Every structure is written in structure tokens, then in C-alpha cells.
């Protein structure tokens, strides 16, 4: 297929969620994963060298075309609605779930030293965390984990892309910003 790159580009253009390599493979009925991978990286390079307003990124286990972060402020002006922002408590709780998953509410509360039921519920409603099951403990407490949407929103290929807590600590020799 000599126009493989253009076909893949058209798929990426209409896809609503990150497009998995295997999905592209089954749609195109091309057996060669490497050919697809090459076409994808060639596309990514093209967008880069042409200084396009968007770029090709690998996120949540698939590929997706996204606008460049440096143009975010123009798009925010174009769009009239703003996504609801997470509170500091929400971000803290989300970070704990992301790093400690599968995790119980009591684990989160032990670290934060404060009731976290409401915060967890908000994260659940926003689709950032999910119920993975229940622990075989008295009261069958819920086990929480992060979702694919979490990866999509925070631009992560997978959970392994999160920096380790140790790396963060080394970076964080200075104090965390106090946004209060």
C-alpha cells in the first residue's frame, strides 16, 4: 500500500479515541506492524518539521492527533465552555490512587490524614478513577484504580510513564508550590 501513510492519517483524523496499532492493523488488513509503525513515526516527523498546529502523540495505548500545547490559550478563547477543574484535594487524591493502585479508601485517608470519601466520589463521577473490585475484608471495601481516561487527560502512554516517587522527590528538593 503506497498511500498507507495517508490512509492512517485519515483514520487518525476521524478517530474519537486513541487509535491502537492493532486496530489500524485490522482495519487496513495489513499484516506488517512495522510498516504501520514506520508510517506513524513518519507522520509524526512531518507534523513536527512542518510546524503544524497539531502533533501526533502516543497516549493511553494508542495514537492520537492533538493540538500543540503552546496554542492552548487560543483554543480556550475559541471554546466558550471550560472543563471543570480539579481541586487541590482532588489532585492529591488522584495522585495517591495513581501511584498506590489498587488502593482502598482507607489507604488514601491514611496518607492524607483526612476523610476522602467525597473526593473519591468526585473522581469516580469524572471518570478518572474506577472501582476495580472489592477486597476480601470486613465490609468488603472498594478497590480503586485509575481509568484510561486518566491516561488520556494527563497525556500518559501508560502508568509506567509516571515518574517514580523517588524521581519526584529528587526533583522536589525545593518545596511544592503553595498555590494558596
Amino acid at each position, binding site marked *: 500500500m503506497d498511500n498507507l501513510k495517508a490512509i492512517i492519517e485519515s483514520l487518525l483524523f476521524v478517530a474519537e479515541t486513541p487509535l491502537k496499532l492493532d486496530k489500524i492493523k485490522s482495519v487496513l488488513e495489513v499484516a506488517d506492524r512495522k510498516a504501520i509503525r514506520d508510517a506513524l513515526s513518519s507522520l509524526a516527523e512531518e507534523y513536527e518539521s512542518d510546524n503544524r498546529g497539531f502533533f501526533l502523540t502516543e497516549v493511553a495505548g494508542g495514537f492520537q492527533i492533538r493540538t500543540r500545547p503552546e496554542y492552548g490559550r487560543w483554543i480556550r478563547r475559541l*471554546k466558550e*465552555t471550560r472543563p471543570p477543574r480539579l481541586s*487541590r484535594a482532588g489532585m492529591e487524591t488522584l495522585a495517591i490512587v495513581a501511584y498506590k493502585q489498587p488502593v482502598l479508601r482507607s489507604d488514601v485517608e491514611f496518607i492524607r490524614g483526612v476523610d476522602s470519601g467525597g473526593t473519591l466520589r468526585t473522581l469516580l463521577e469524572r471518570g478518572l478513577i474506577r472501582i476495580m473490585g472489592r477486597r476480601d475484608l470486613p465490609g468488603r471495601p472498594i478497590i480503586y484504580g485509575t481509568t484510561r*481516561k486518566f491516561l488520556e487527560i494527563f497525556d500518559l502512554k501508560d502508568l509506567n510513564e509516571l515518574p517514580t516517587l523517588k524521581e519526584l522527590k529528587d526533583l522536589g528538593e525545593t518545596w511544592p508550590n503553595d498555590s494558596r
Partner: protein
Amino acid sequence: MEHIQDQTLYQVHLGDLFDGPMDLLVHLVKKNEVDIYDIPIASITQQYMEYLEWMKSVNIDVAGEFLVMAATLTYIKSRMLLPSHDEEGDEEDPRMEIVRPLAEYLQFKYAAEDLMERDRLDWDVFLRKGLNGVEAWPDGYPEGFTQVSLFQLIDAFQEIVKRVSPRYFLDVTPETISVRNRISQIADILEDRGSVTFRELFDTEVTKTDIIVTLLAILEMAKLQLIRIMQHVESGIIRIFRG
């Protein structure tokens, strides 16, 4: 009367200022520019108490967790004052009781900041379809399935109700099965099998209440996006997938 109104007007929850006692402690340690592994416990405890006092004086509702931390700090302070009975000197620094959780909490504060600094979707970077793109089902539709409409779901439900023998409808004993419990059971099934047909979930149900509880559980799970309800294009069978 006016006085009471004033009081309620200015009542603030401590949580609005600090996300719990750990957060307040981090604030104090930072303000004093001290090493968390060498906290001047007497001075920090005193400042912590002054904070609680000030908050009470401006009518802030001090939550229980803040008092627990106050007790812990005071306890550590008193242990620091006691002479050590351990001659070999390998007795642990009493401050470790607060240092360890504080260090762990700080790690996650860094982690949260690191997440915020990433190129966030719908804030820094956008999709062609904008917000809708993210709200869509994570994997798109499974092969051969389409999203089920509310009416198709109602039809399927009516089919199930019809199957139930009318004699069970006379059951008027109060039901103990909760929707929450049923959600947990369905989650377990999906955990094991990945998907299940709509009809199968009602196979074990005999009473009308059971059926309603199961339906409510399915709807609740769909609302929380824990499941996807799909219909096979050819056979029309409704199947429930993990969200």
C-alpha cells in the same frame, strides 16, 4: 437573632483553608524553612496550636482530625523531654512518628504537581472533537456492537418481567438485597468474564424486587461509566461490557 445570623454567615470550614492536618503541618514546616527530618517539634507544636486557636477565634469549625494531630504532636513533644533509658542510643527518634507520614504525604503533593504540569487534555491540548472525544467510550464500540437505546433496554426488560411467574409477584416481604450489593456482584462477574448478556444477569432472579434491583444496578453502573451496554447488530442480543 442578628447575632446568630452573623455567626452562621462567617462560619468557615477549616477544610477550605487546609486539606487536613497534614496540609497544615506541611505549611508550618515550609514557613519555618526547616528540614522535615529535623523538625523543631516544640516550636512547630506551639504554632500548630496557635493556628487552631486562631481558627476557633474567627469561628472556623475545627474538624476532629486536626485535634488528633494536635494530640500526636503534644505526645511527641513530651516524649522528647523525657530522658532516654536506652544506653546504647538506638532508640528511635520520637519525631519519626510524624516524619514518616509527612514525608510520604509530601511525595504525593509532588506527584499531584507533576500531573498538573503535564499537557492536560482540554486545557493545554485539544482533540478535533474537543471535550466530546474524551467523553466517548474509551475503546470505541466492540466489533459488531452498537450502543443500545433506552427503548431497546426497556423492551428487553419487559421481556424479562414477562418470564417471571406471576405467583412471585405476591411476595410482599421487605427486601434486603441492596443495589450496591448487586453492583458489586455484577462487577465481579465482569471482572471474571469481561462481558455478560443482559438476560443472563436476570437468570437467577426470581422475585420482582430482585429484577428491579438488578436493573437499577445496571443503570447505576452505566451512569458511573463502569459498564457499557451494547447491542449486537445482527442478533439483537444486549450485552454488558466492562467500562
